[in-house]
């Protein structure tokens, strides 16, 4: 179980000698990920979802707030002592090409963490090879075929499976999948998603799924939780299926409306909004962060920042003064 409260992160942009502009990547985010759960972070690039994922995987520091892993608050530990906790959380990179060392064979790649593990647990050396084979079979590849090969000899899908197998060498409690299928051929994407789903169901590994594609989040776990991030803030949070069928925050509605409709199979959603793109990169930091792009904004939105609160009629938490449920996703065409 991993929880975070009030996580903030600001990137200092290097400007001139007089100082640069700071980028507020995360503005106080709370999250909780249960053991074996499926949680998705969605949003556009720059919303902070990747930064948050990297913080959760222990690859990035945070400015303020607390992260608690299995009951231990990380602020009570010095950074060096946090490593064993964060090791339970493994990041699956977006790019399976750079995630594997091109100069090492797959066996070498798996052997290093397994050897460490064997030493710690006092296991014989023979265990390393057996375990490597076992893990590769678990992720659905033939160990005999890949063990002696270099990453460049494998397809993107196979590489991503090897990356997952490598993450499993340390028996993680959670996998953080950051756009893990976006660089894989369309026909093979689903099999990687199915693998993640399967690992969750069979091994009880929780999956934190970071994506801009809500449909894939739905596939990983429709019963899981969905966090919609916008400019470093959670703007809507609730059960994945519930948010997809009835989003209440205008930003979530824009995101869902932007998903292409498979004409012939589907019809556009009845309340689809025409989303506005953020052409101007300079945003006001006053009031609701989404106000400038929001079709439903009022004067209040430009002055006050709405907090993330639970609704009455719809159980989602949302940061909006004018939440309204709208059905924006495509509906199946009647044959």
């Amino acid at each position, binding site marked *: 179980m991993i929880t975070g409260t009030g996580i903030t992160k600001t990137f200092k942009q290097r400007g001139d000698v007089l100082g640069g502009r700071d980028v507020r990547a995360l503005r106080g985010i709370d999250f909780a990920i249960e053991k074996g759960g499926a949680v998705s972070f969605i949003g556009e690039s720059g919303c902070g979802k990747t930064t948050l994922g990297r913080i959760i995987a222990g690859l990035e520091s945070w400015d303020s707030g607390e992260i608690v892993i299995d009951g231990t608050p990380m602020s009570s530990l010095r950074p060096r002592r946090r490593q064993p906790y964060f090791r339970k959380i493994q990041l699956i990179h977006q790019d399976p090409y750079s995630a594997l060392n091109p100069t090492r064979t797959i066996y070498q790649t798996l052997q290093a963490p397994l050897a460490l593990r064997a030493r710690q647990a006092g296991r014989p050396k023979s265990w390393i090879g057996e375990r490597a084979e076992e893990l590769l079979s678990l992720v659905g590849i033939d160990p005999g075929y890949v063990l002696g090969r270099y990453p460049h000899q494998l397809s993107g899908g196979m590489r991503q499976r090897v990356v997952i197998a490598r993450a499993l060498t340390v028996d993680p409690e959670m996998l953080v999948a950051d756009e893990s299928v976006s660089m894989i051929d369309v026909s093979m994407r689903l099999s990687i998603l199915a693998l993640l789903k399967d690992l969750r169901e069979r091994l009880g590994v929780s999956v934190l799924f970071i994506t801009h594609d809500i449909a894939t989040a739905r596939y990983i776990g429709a019963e899981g939780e969905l966090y919609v991030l916008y400019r470093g803030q959670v703007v809507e949070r609730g059960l994945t299926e519930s948010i997809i069928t009835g989003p209440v925050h205008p930003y979530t509605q824009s995101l869902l409306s932007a998903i292409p409709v498979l004409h012939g199979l589907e019809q556009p959603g009845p309340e689809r909004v025409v989303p506005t793109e953020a052409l101007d990169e300079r945003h006001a930091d006053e009031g609701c962060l989404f106000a400038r792009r929001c079709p439903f904004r009022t004067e209040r939105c430009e002055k006050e920042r709405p907090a993330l609160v639970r609704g009455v009629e719809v159980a989602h938490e949302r940061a909006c003064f004018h939440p309204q449920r709208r059905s924006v996703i*495509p509906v199946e065409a009647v044959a």
Partner: protein
Amino acid sequence: MTTNFPQAESAAVSPLVAAPGHATAPGVRVKDLTVVYRTPLGELPAVGGVSLTIEPGTITGIVGESGSGKSTLALSLLNAVQPPGRIKGGSVEIDGLGDVVKLGGDELRQARGRHLGYVFQAAQNSLNPLKTVGKQLLDLGRSHGVDDLRALVRDAKDLLERMGLDGARVLDSHQHELSGGMRQRVGIMLALVLNAQLVILDEPTTALDMITQATILRIVREVHKERGLTTLMVTHDIGVAAEVTDRLAVMYGGRVVEHGPTMEVLGAPSHPYTRGLIRAIPRLSGDIAEAQALPGRPPTLGTLPTAGCVFRERCPLRMDICETVDPRPLTHDRRTVACHAVERSHSTAEQEEYA
């Protein structure tokens, strides 16, 4: 009810950029086109004997995975296949231009830009980072011998404004000052500013955010209609193609395996690859548990079978004949499919009709 965002509305009613009167949308007829790449294993076909007719005035989507030959096919329409690739055979007839494969040198250079506009994959990188957009526009004009550069700049500004941008500001900007969506609009502007009537978009929305993608797709559709273009969109994303195209060509292993009206191809796919591909897309509507992965992986140049159907390794309908005979594309009810199993079911259906 459809809720329009106020800003979007104002963009939609901005004055149309007058389409030039002289030209009409050209049609394209690709016949038996074969494009090969030289490799240590010999010359391997990236596009193997493709025939494809693109009706004037349509938006046609070419969908395929990596290695399907879709980008190579698109480049062939400009006769711009780079070594080690070369067009080995076949023809590409474009109305008003003739066979592009036979064009060369200056003629070809003039044709690109004047007749054919190409929006490159990841327009992010197709701009010169050292020059402003305006300078690059003038370079383009000069290299095509445009006399009235003032008018060219005016057209460019109009086009950019049509796409919801501040034209003057964009022309004064360098690449790094523009967001992904703005660069893609600049790419579209540069492709259209010389009044090209055939526009080829190569992965126009890859690496763009969802909302930006939706906006760009809307712009593509609107500009296509206003300027009376023939548009070809190459993409790996069926959703993107479904959103904007009238007709859809599905490529696999250097072949067009299915081609027809988008609605019909998606609504009732015939080729087992198209069917598998559609089933492999996680969707927002319907039962997500029905999504199913397509087994195996797409072929590369090196693993492409030399005889028989290119898809047979992954095909659930595989028959003996698929091992040896490459299925011919057969047209039936405006739809073309290259599959032995589909061919057989059609012929049995016909026999039953006559019986």
